[in-house]
């Protein structure tokens, strides 16, 4: 139980599951069921979101300790417990997940027509798994949520996806599962050594360097696929292209953050020396991700694929920031994760708006949309600019801090990351130009309707957040600054003591 004696985190985690159960109960003809399912899902996720705001207001920013901690023994003989809690690193991701879910449900309001009930159940289960994963303080518990996230996502892509959905969902599943198996082995090895799977206790535990290397590689296999890092990124464009709009939003908004979160939560604190040892490797992969995937994005003909590749490039910035091991780099990485969650989610929604009307994501199909959809053009422009990290939008603070942090580690790495500024501008502006600008050549486009009130309702919170994060990022940065600074100090201390021991 936490200090207030109220298990808020468990409530947030399992409330969507309750909603899902309620939807399952609904009986009647199909239209009634669908309408019921939609409304129940919306209300459940909205209530969850409102409840999660408690975290925003009650979170104590002055300490790096875990807060709202809940502890129940689960398998005491194995040292495994049901333990939940959040610190500065995870708290905002919980909020991100609870914010995006209702928006996704709204976005699927009209576009999903078949098996609405199952779809809504899948989404609510997905929310449970996401929130649980960010709150879990026990490695075993984390693993359960981490893996369980795959299942509803797999179903969402596989059932409600596009033409090649089966291929995409299998690819998604196999790629991510392969890494997870290795992580499970690593967890077992850790447990074997330390006799516990509690994350706070593990953080105190010293692991010999030789073992750190193997554990790091095992974690890396799992997290790198999830991030995704080059060259294990190819599942992502396929998954995005085939997923329904809302699936893409969650995939880009929250699921991509799991890998980076894993690095921050486990690799860095538990395996400090191995992290340092492998840092150059990560830098190299990150820079290749930024440059290579940005170039690939430039060549795309499909809007969703283009944004998917841009996500890989942005995540390259994130992994780079994490492994700079300094305050600016890590905070920048965290901020980029958040802003990317909002901005790329919004960009996928923007694609969805056009897809709902024209049923194609071919860039060449469009052109001159700004003429008939001025409000839409404005919204798309804002998120395009946020994606290219224009100062004053959400994209900038993170990228800026990462480059600043990277420069003090290695200026060439910083230069590589900064190249993304130009390439990012190139592919996003090309996209914008070919979709929104130019003369309208197709008759069907002439009749397009501008964004509907429902769509405005979806976009407004994202627009507000994008500007808020750009103009006053401090209200987000302040959440993680204490935690990150403690993390950096501990990391340095661990490296220092290791060097000291080696010196003897």
């Amino acid at each position, binding site marked *: 139980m936490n200090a207030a004696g109220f298990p808020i985190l468990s409530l947030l985690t399992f409330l969507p599951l309750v909603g899902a159960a309620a939807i399952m109960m609904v009986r009647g003809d199909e239209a009634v069921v669908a309408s019921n399912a939609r409304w129940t899902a919306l209300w459940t996720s909205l209530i969850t979101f409102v409840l999660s705001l408690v975290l925003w207001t009650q979170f104590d920013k002055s300490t790096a300790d875990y807060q709202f901690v809940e502890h129940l023994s689960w398998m005491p003989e194995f040292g495994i417990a049901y333990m939940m809690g959040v610190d500065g690193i995870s708290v905002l991701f919980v909020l991100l997940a609870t914010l995006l879910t209702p928006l996704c449900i709204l976005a699927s309001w009209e576009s999903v027509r078949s098996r609405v009930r199952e779809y809504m159940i899948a989404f609510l289960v997905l929310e449970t798994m996401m929130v649980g994963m960010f709150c879990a303080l026990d490695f075993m518990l984390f693993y359960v949520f981490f893996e369980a996230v795959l299942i509803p996502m797999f179903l969402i892509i596989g059932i409600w996806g596009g033409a090649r959905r089966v291929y995409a969902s299998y690819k998604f599943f196999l790629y991510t599962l392969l890494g997870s198996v290795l992580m499970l082995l690593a967890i077992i090895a850790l447990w074997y050594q330390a006799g516990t799977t509690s994350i706070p206790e593990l953080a105190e535990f010293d692991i010999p360097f030789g073992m750190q290397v193997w554990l790091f590689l095992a974690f890396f296999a799992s997290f790198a696929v999830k991030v995704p890092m080059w*060259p*294990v990124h*190819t599942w992502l464009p396929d998954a995005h292209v085939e997923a329904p709009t809302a699936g893409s939003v969650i995939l880009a908004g929250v699921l991509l953050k799991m890998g980076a979160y894993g690095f921050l939560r486990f690799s860095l604190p538990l395996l400090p020396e191995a992290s340092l*040892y492998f840092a*150059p*490797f990560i830098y*190299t*992969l990150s820079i*290749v991700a930024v440059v*290579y995937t940005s*170039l*690939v*994005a*430039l*060549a*795309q003909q499909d809007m969703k694929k283009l944004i998917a590749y841009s996500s890989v490039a942005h995540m390259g910035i994130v992994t780079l920031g994490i492994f700079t091991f*300094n*305050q*600016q780099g890590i*905070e*920048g990485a965290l901020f980029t994760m958040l802003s990317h969650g909002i901005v790329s989610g919004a960009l996928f929604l923007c694609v969805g708006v056009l897809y709902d009307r024209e049923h194609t994501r071919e860039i060449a199909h469009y052109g*001159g949309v*700004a*003429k008939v959809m001025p409000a839409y053009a404005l919204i798309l422009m804002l998120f395009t*600019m946020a994606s290219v990290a*224009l*100062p*004053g939008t959400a994209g900038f*603070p993170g990228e*800026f*801090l990462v*480059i*600043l942090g*990277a*420069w*003090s580690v*290695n*200026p060439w790495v*910083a*230069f590589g990351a*900064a*190249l993304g*500024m*130009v390439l990012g*501008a*190139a592919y996003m*502006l*090309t996209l914008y*130009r070919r979709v*929104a*600008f*130019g*003369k309208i050549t197709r008759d069907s486009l002439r009749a397009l309707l501008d964004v509907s009130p429902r769509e405005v309702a979806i976009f407004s919170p994202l627009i507000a957040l994008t500007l808020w994060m750009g*103009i006053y*990022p*401090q209200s987000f*940065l*302040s959440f993680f*600054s204490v935690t990150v*600074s403690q993390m950096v100090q501990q990391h340095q201390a661990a490296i220092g003591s290791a060097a000291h021991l080696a010196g003897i």
Partner: protein
Amino acid sequence: MFVGAVFFPLLGATISGFLGRWIGDRAAMWTTVLCMVLAAICGSLSFWQVAMGGQPGTVTLFTWMDVGELEFAWALRYDTLSAIMVGMVTFISTLIHLYSIGYMSHDATPSRFFAYLSLFTFMMLMLVTADNLVQLFFGWEGVGLASYLLIGYWYEKESANAAAMKAFIVNRVGDIFFMLGMALTFLTFGSLDFDTIFAAAAGKVDASFLGVNSIELIGVLLFLGACGKSAQLGFHTWLPDAMEGPTPVSALIHAATMVTAGVFLMCRMSPIMEYAPVALSIVTIVGASTALFAATIGCVQNDIKRIIAYSTCSQLGYMFFAAGVGLYQTAMFHLFTHAFFKALLFLGAGSVIHAMSDEQDIRKMGGIWRKIPITYVVMWIGSLALAGIPLFAGYYSKDAILEGAFAAHSWVGNYAFICGVIAAFLTAFYSWRLLILTFHGKPRADHHTMEHLHESPAVMLIPLVLLAVGAAFAGMVFAPYFIGHEYEHFWNGAIFNLPAKHMMEAMHHVPEWVPMLVMTVAISGIVLAVILYGFLPAVPGRIAAAFPGIYRFLLNKWYFDELYARIFVEPAKRLAMRFWQIGDMRIIDGMPNGVASLAAGTARGVVRLQTGRVANYAFTMIIGLVVFVTLFLMGH
């Protein structure tokens, strides 16, 4: 007052942009103009108080970021340097807004246009009043966005879209260096606040980074950033293409906002730059080369706006080499006077284009001066100021720059002086070529256009006349303050000059033949143009025919666009395609298939890797590169 000068334009942009559809175009347009007038009043008062009254101030709004030791806020810093810019930008921008009411009267979505214009102004004001490098970068990128929107304003035109993208992306290339410059500044000084950096600069002279002097490297990186924004040699390609936007936009980009930002950055960073002699030499050389290079192109262009655009490029070169030899005050003075006559020339050109039914080619004009007398007179004044004829604004600043370059007594200074004098000759030449071809001689336009020839409405002429007054007198009135005997009091420490250099004094003590030479070349440029185009109109064509190579080289702008397309754009596109189709689709996705087929007992997967295709090897090389770079970095 300080806040008002900056935020009234934003208010105008917001109202016009978001409410324009409800309140109607007329209301939207006049709202932005009203907001700009209020901003101009605030701006002028600020200028009076800060620069003339010597009372600088800073308004801190709220914290922007606070990460570890890095901390900075949104703030409006008003010292003489920013007060000059605020006063000038708000004044010129107001006139351009007013002019646009007439110019854009036939446009379909003027409220959008005015929203962009005001946004542009706001971003520039944020840039010049920044109290730290990051806010400066905010304005820096913000003007990039606004210029992108405005250049591509007529978004149904493919050429406008291409030009807009080019402007944004070329600027972004410069921004990489700005960003890295900031990173190094932070690493060196532990802060990005101007006051902290400036105070610590003298103590960090010996700091080094990767074996290079940190301050020098900061200077070079920031200068490269400035090159992007100010269209210096190598980064200039976007500026002439930016003509695709409506003419008032060109006036705004060239005179008040955008391109002057780079010069402003150099002056703002004078406390750093002064300790970076090598960086300053680079600034001087690039600036001087740009001044000359752009002037040569200006002589052969036929589009009235393009000629003026190259002249901006060239004049910016003057400002840069002035800063390069340590005469930041003079650079700012030229920036100030240039704003008046360049806005005047562009708006005048707009008036000509308007009168000629949207014709921009000067070969199709001629013989129209009687029909549009006011435009004709103001274009003369603008050209006189640009050529640096005594008593007009440009004379005071350009003369001072050339004298200063001479007085620097260094080889870079001499190089700048020589380039500057030749460029001054060419400037006078192409200005009068433009005047004569546009206004004199026999009418070359078709009958229909000539019949519709008309002087512009009052709402366009009033700004022209006001700017003409500025182009005529701004130099005379402000010279004593900017560069004359009152300069120390006027600048009030906003610009730092190394005490040992004495450039501000030295520039007034050059041999008498120097100013005489400057004046002579300007007048002979005019005379040559008048003879060639006024009296012997057949000769220029014959000259061009006699030297076809040189003529084509100049006409095609030294082939920079083609060069860049060949070495950057096309390879990038090709590489993108290869990476995607071969790297991602065939190799990375093919790997599992390859493994599968291996398991099935066929080695087809391996064979596929040895197809002899260059791209496959390129991909293998990347993998190798990853391994090597990793090993290399680990070795450190």
